[in-house]
């Protein structure tokens, strides 16, 4: 026989009241889990959409040379003749502290080549990354799969009278046009895209890069922080954020987050109030019992422990039930509220442990006064029969 046996047996006796208490905490925790899960779903949706919107960070060499624009954006000192970035810089970006916020890293080498007497920008890319970055690309033919294949921008194809499958000589190397880009209305229409390694070789700049486009999402940190961290690992580069990208969406999400926190606090406070009033009523109902405990030598701390142990068990059950129900509710309500289809509910152990801890803490905080009240009960008043 231990104090826990007294607590457990008392909970067993008062099943309906215990269920009511658990329900109070469950509702609070369900609300918290639902709102957190839906916020996460929205975050995930935004990060997916961010990919579709392309890069939001540009990494260029620190240089005051020739100013060029790329994709309608001024990318400052990109110099086609200077190489201050190289292949080894790419993994450094992937290794920053907030690397989980990095979605795509697309390195580029841009150089001028002369074909049929026309000066054209040749761009070396990693097609795998480039396609992720530019989901709006539509290709007639195929995306290049080897280093002797290239992709022509729409305007370039027209000027050079080339179509898919045609050969093309670049700096003395003959390659095959695997596909033509549909008109994008951007700089891409005027570029030839080739495999990065091929272009480095063709331009005789092995390992060189003069631009890295990064797609990052900023759920847990501001974009400025990502820029700061990239700048730190690439001190020789100039890192620029394109803040407008999805900023409005992020702000809306921020408002929703604040709203969720507000609702969660209110619901949890109501849950706490339910626990408080029920525990007070329970303590008053158990006056005689507490009187007996005190009379046979239980210390005040023993009474407090009995009550806290009961609330701990209630909080634990409320937290677990609330978490499971919260997952269920977000699974049903999430797609309806966010418009995201097919998104599964993420089972997050940290969230699970966190909300169970929250539930237990709420229960114990709400029971501090009833427990102290119980421990201070005058045993002679409690035992009126004595």
């Amino acid at each position, binding site marked *: 026989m231990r104090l826990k046996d*007294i607590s457990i*047996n008392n909970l067993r006796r008062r099943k309906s009241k215990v269920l009511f208490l658990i329900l109070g905490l469950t509702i609070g925790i369900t609300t918290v889990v639902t709102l957190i899960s839906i916020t996460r779903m929205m975050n995930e949706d935004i990060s997916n959409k961010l990919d579709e919107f392309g890069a939001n960070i540009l990494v260029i060499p620190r240089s005051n040379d020739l100013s060029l624009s790329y994709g309608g954006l001024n990318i400052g000192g990109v110099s086609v003749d200077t190489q201050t970035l190289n292949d080894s810089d790419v993994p450094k970006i992937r290794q920053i502290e907030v690397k989980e916020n990095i979605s795509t890293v697309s390195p580029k080498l841009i150089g001028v080549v002369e074909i049929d007497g026309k000066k054209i920008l040749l761009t070396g890319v990693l097609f795998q990354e480039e396609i992720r970055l530019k989901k709006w690309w539509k290709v007639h033919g195929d995306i290049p799969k080897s280093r002797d294949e290239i992709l022509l921008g729409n305007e370039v194809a027209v000027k050079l009278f080339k179509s898919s499958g045609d050969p093309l000589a670049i700096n003395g190397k003959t390659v095959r046009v695997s596909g033509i880009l549909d008109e994008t209305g951007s700089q891409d229409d005027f570029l030839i895209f080739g495999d990065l390694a091929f272009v480095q070789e063709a331009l005789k700049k092995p390992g060189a890069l003069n631009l890295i486009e990064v797609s990052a999402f900023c759920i847990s940190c501001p974009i400025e922080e990502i820029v700061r961290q990239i700048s730190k690992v690439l001190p020789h580069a100039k890192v620029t954020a394109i803040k407008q990208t999805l900023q409005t969406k992020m702000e809306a999400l921020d408002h929703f987050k604040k709203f969720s926190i507000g609702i969660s606090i209110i619901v949890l406070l109501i849950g706490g109030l339910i626990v408080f009033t029920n525990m007070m009523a329970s303590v008053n109902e158990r006056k005689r019992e507490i009187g*007996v405990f005190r*009379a046979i*030598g239980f210390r005040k701390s023993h009474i407090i422990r009995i009550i806290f142990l009961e609330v701990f068990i209630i909080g634990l059950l409320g937290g677990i039930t609330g978490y499971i129900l919260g997952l269920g509710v977000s699974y049903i309500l999430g797609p309806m509220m966010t418009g995201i289809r097919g998104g599964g509910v993420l089972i997050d152990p940290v969230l699970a442990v966190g909300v169970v801890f929250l539930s237990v803490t709420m229960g114990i905080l709400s029971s501090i006064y009833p427990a102290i009240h119980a421990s201070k009960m005058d045993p*002679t008043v409690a*035992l009126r029969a*004595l």
Partner: protein
Amino acid sequence: MRDEGWMPSALCGLGNKMSLIEIKQLSKTYVSGEERVPALVYVNLTIERGEFISIIGPSGSGKSTLLTILGGLNHPTEGEVVVDEIPIYQLPLEKLADFRREYLGFIFQSFQLIPYLTVIENVMLPLAITEKSNREQLKMAEEILGKMGLRGKGKRLPDQLSGGEQERVAIARALVNSPPILLADEPTGNLDTKTGKEIMELFKSLNEEGQTIAMVTHNPENIGFSSRTIQLRDGKVVNGEPH
């Protein structure tokens, strides 16, 4: 607490004729608003080891107040209660709780068994806050239940027992920790005459084994079982002679 060395003599030989309880100039006044109601007025009393005393008197004479003060549950307004050379009301509250656990066994008028605990759990209750293992607790509880004639009824809930059996459970709970003093408040108040007599005979036999008992009672038939009667009237001891 007993091993702490500050209250050892109660467990020493029962042949020690030193007073176990000494009540000196004890007064208790209840204050209700501006009204002051004296419950006990300068009571002096000594209870020897192995004594069985009955405390009698009309309603409002201070019997229950005296018992609760003896039980370390009710601080006196004036005076002192010394148990086994320990001035109990000078103890800090938590030590006073320890004192109750170690020195006193309470038997309440309406048994006051915990309804959601089984008979054996009720008996083990005072042991729940000791360091005794579950096995030890169980052994002690079964032993005392056997002594009370309740062997085999340990798994029942209190409301599955008769009044007399519930009283025996209450006595078992009071005695499981082998306290030097047993305090009983109207132990036969809720029992029929026959069962009441059986309980009093049980008290008598416990006393013969050396148990010190202080019992509040209204029932004149119970007085004959005790070795001394303390009669209270208007908060004062009017008679405290041995039988």
